[in-house]
């Protein structure tokens, strides 16, 4: 269950590639939801680099594991990952948010090869993910559903409707991630509507809950394997992350949910990543 050193380095390298690809994608545009895209990069690297079953040439293969990116505004990070994994040409990333594109700001199952669910209105991926997991169970299938929530998103009532249902439904083919980057559009979560003891809340709702460093690929991987070994419980993994992580002009900045940036800023951020070794970004 431990991640070998070489595997860890490979996934860290993939995370760096996803960050660079995401920055290039945003760079063509000059603005975007950069903070919440950067904070889920290690998760995407572990899922698409190691854990998930998928076929880039057959995006709707029925043996695939599902990713429901409920925080749909982080779509650009997912698109970068899918492009790197061969779901569509890398060049397509240049079309982000351009008229007629297949890469819209928020994830859309009908536009982008490899995007499994349409999200954007926060809270809704919680329920659609539950429905997918339940439907797969009904059919006796062993596909996993990986469902990614934002922390600000956890202020939505629908999340807790789903948490109650999902805890009771004991869907052990479902693993929920909360990207707990501590920031939402208007500032710090703790200054707006704090989530309190998030792990305890999920546990009270009947979930197998873990908390890990969301920028440590080994910790993420090992938490997923532990979750998969648990039978008869839905699982949640709270990822402690930093909004804007690994992006020189976004990390640690207060209002980094949606930013405007220059080509020079993007180039500097990419250069910093290329100069950095492994996870030490």
């Amino acid at each position: 269950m431990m991640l070998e050193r070489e595997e860890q380095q490979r996934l860290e390298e993939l995370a760096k590639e996803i960050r660079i690809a995401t920055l290039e994608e945003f760079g063509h545009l000059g603005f975007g939801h950069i903070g919440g895209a950067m904070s889920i990069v290690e998760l995407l690297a572990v899922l698409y680099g190691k854990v998930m079953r998928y076929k880039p040439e057959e995006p709707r293969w029925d043996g695939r594991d599902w990713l429901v990116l409920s925080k749909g505004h982080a779509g650009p990070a997912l698109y970068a990952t899918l492009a790197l994994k061969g779901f569509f040409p890398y060049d397509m990333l240049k079309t982000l948010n351009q008229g007629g594109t297949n890469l819209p700001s928020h994830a859309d199952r009908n536009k982008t090869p490899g995007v499994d669910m349409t999200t954007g209105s926060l809270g809704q991926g919680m329920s659609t993910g539950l429905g997918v997991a339940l439907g797969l169970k009904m059919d006796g299938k062993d596909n996993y559903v990986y469902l990614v929530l934002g922390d600000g998103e956890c202020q939505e009532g629908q999340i807790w409707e789903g948490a109650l249902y999902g805890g009771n439904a004991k869907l052990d083919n479902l693993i929920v991630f909360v990207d707990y980057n501590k920031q939402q559009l208007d500032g710090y979560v703790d200054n707006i509507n704090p989530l309190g003891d998030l792990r305890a809340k999920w546990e009270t709702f009947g979930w197998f809950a873990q908390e890990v460093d969301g920028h440590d690929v080994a910790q993420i991987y090992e938490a997923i394997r532990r979750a998969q070994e648990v039978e008869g419980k839905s699982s949640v993994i709270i990822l402690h992350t930093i909004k804007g992580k690994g992006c020189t002009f976004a990390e640690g900045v207060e209002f980094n949910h949606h930013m405007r940036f220059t080509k020079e800023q993007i180039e500097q951020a990419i250069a910093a990543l290329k100069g950095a070794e492994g996870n030490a970004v």
Partner: protein
Amino acid sequence: MRFSIDEVAMKDAYIDALMELAEENPQIVVLDADLMNSNSTIKFLKRFPERAINVGVQEANMLGMAAGLAAVGKIPFTHTFACFNARRALDQIYMSVAYAQLPVKIVGTDPGVTAAFNGGTHMPLEDVGFLRGIPTMTVIEPVDNVMMRAILPQVAAMDTPVYLRVNRKQPVKIYAPGTEFTIGKGKVLRDGDDLTIVATGILVPEALEAAEALAEEGIGARVINMFTIKPIDAELLIKAAQETGAVVTAENHNVINGLGSAVAEVLSQHHPVPMERVGVQDLFGEVGSVEYLQQRFGLTSEAIVEKAKAVLGRKNS
């Protein structure tokens, strides 16, 4: 005119028809939000326990889960009162269902004044307006059990979302057993050349009574049951407007954004004729019996007759 009341409540005719379909199609699943006894979906739960989900009092979650189930090939039918299934879960219907192209079938019960003793809080007089404003959505208001049984297989087979607006109670019998219906095609119930009454739901028997009363005064009213409100049967409407030159609509809904609006949209563009709308005149619902509320809001054959004469006056002036 006296209509006979069906001995079978429409909710039972509905669920029996759905169970018949589910016998042949293992993908049909039922979701309800703690109204299984009210909606008769409890019968489905007993017969197909592995395919019936009571989510509890969670309408938003129910619609989202239904979308997820549709994404893996299920044919989900969601059930609760129309005020919750349409109004409360509207954003989920918009994004998770329709925008995502996931063909969930939404069954809203107790539309308009049929919410009766639950009162104004529970009285959806705007649901048709909300739902018909969503691209790809089909909006259907079945009028009796014969129609319900006939259209349900078509609804289940559609690869787009459908909103079924269902009066749970015992309906009047309008159609003879074996009558065929096509979604999107209105049904002419009575011929006439002086004006056309276009009606849905519980206003259909009122429209037929009004036509009878008008006939006694020598006025020939054509009656169309426009049970598919979206997509509306524009061809039938234009023909009726051309041939009769005057139209009255009648619906158990706000006159804003309902059937009357839909008919006006077609006719004002293609063949404008004098038109009047019977329906709730932009008011909130109230508590009371269906009979009381029909009187209170003017959802009666008398109101239709009055509007018919008004529209004929305009036509002939």
